[in-house]
């Protein structure tokens, strides 16, 4: 197994700031927009973006939630393991709101498909956008593309993109791991 650094802490920080600016450009004061981090690892991206938007760009209030997609996945009973759920926390209405789904890595698109179904349980958003930090292009199983992307990566299927966060893993870094 070998791994190389895809993005360093500094690069991640620059990309997050760019994504925050792009969100700001389209959503202004976030009064009609909610951010939804997809569990388990999209929540870190959502938290970071929220912090940047509030602390550095003066956005007063942003509704941020976490969405667990386990019960909406299309691979139930198809693997050896029971799919274990994590917490969903959406304390606001998404009815008629602009929803930005946020995940760390976009790969086959199946998680996003599940998230699109799951979010409907909380109401009918006026529109849904997708933001991903890493976009593994050419590996999609479904016709799903991000509206905001941090970095495009051409990785073959045997490779794995691992995103680490300081608050969870000790440092901000993204690895490309060759299994």
């Amino acid at each position, binding site marked *: 197994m070998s791994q190389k650094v895809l993005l360093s802490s500094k690069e991640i920080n620059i990309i997050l700031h760019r994504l925050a600016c792009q969100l700001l450009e389209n959503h202004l004061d976030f009064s009609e927009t909610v951010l939804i981090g997809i569990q388990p690892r999209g929540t870190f991206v959502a938290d970071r973006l929220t912090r940047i938007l509030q602390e550095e760009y003066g956005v007063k209030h942003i509704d941020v939630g976490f969405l*667990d997609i*386990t*019960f*909406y*996945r299309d691979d*139930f*009973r198809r693997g050896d*393991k*029971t*799919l*274990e*759920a*994590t*917490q*969903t926390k959406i304390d606001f209405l998404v009815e008629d709101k602009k929803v930005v789904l946020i995940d760390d890595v976009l790969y086959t698109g199946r998680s996003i498909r599940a998230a699109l*179904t*799951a979010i*409907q*349980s*909380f*109401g009918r958003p006026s529109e849904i956008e997708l933001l991903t930090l890493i976009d593994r292009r050419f590996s999609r199983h479904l016709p799903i593309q991000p509206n905001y992307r941090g970095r495009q990566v051409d990785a073959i299927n045997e490779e794995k993109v691992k995103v680490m966060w300081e608050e969870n893993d000790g440092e901000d870094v993204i690895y490309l791991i060759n299994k």
Partner: protein
Amino acid sequence: MSELSVKHLLGIKYLKEKDIQLIFETADHFKEVINRSIKKVPSLRDITIANIFFENSTRTKLSFELAEKRLSADVINFSAGQSSVKKGETLIDTVNNILSMKVDMVVMRHPNPGAGIFLSKHVNASIVNAGDGAHEHPTQALLDSYSIRERLGDVAGKKVVIVGDILHSRVALSNIFALKLQGAKVKVCGPKTLMPKHIESLGVEVETNLRKALDWCDVANMLRIQNERLDISYFPTTREYTQQFGVNKALLDSLDKEVVIMHPGPINRGVEITSDVADSKQSIILGQVENGVAIRMAVIYLLASKIK
């Protein structure tokens, strides 16, 4: 640990402590799901479940059916009263006929203890015991413990007294297994005639004085007097039973603490519990019913994920 150690839910006796924790953690997520505006998830859309009830039931049957539907399973219902069982069909034949319709899971209530275990050895489907005679009622015990955990934060170390007809109660037996497994202290309280011999061997203490039991406990689980199972007279009159083993507001108010009151339903109001207690803040009876759906969703989800 991310899957159950069992293929069927036949009784709490066959579960490990970590199975119970996994069921609770999964139920936490389903409880959030059933409080959404759309209370349904698509996980089990390719699973068919048969609810086979050889004995009457209202809330258990409704609760299971709702749990199955909220998971998007296809559901068929079968009640012995309207079936070929009356024409002399055996249990295995009945169930195999249902299974030939490509059913993946069977939820069964049966008047004979061990019916679920028997079935699990003879048919190729996941079996969930929804009550087998006076033996076990595992999902009830799970939702009872889950409700205690929700109210008091934890089950371990809590003192629980189970009051009433211990002899005929599958709820009592499953609760004793579940509570002991999670490290709670358990007493049983009721007339000596309704106390099984050697009940102490399960690690519980017998108390025949309700007042003393309530002074000791954090939680009192009041069982129903099951008139349909009382083939002989176990106590002189219902009124005498109520005087000795029924809870009322005056009794609870005279204690120096607030005991959590539970009841598996259906309630005989004025017999084992008075209306003012059943409807009071101390009572978590309706919470138990809500938790029942979440617990059954968790059990079905976790068992279904083992069906290959």
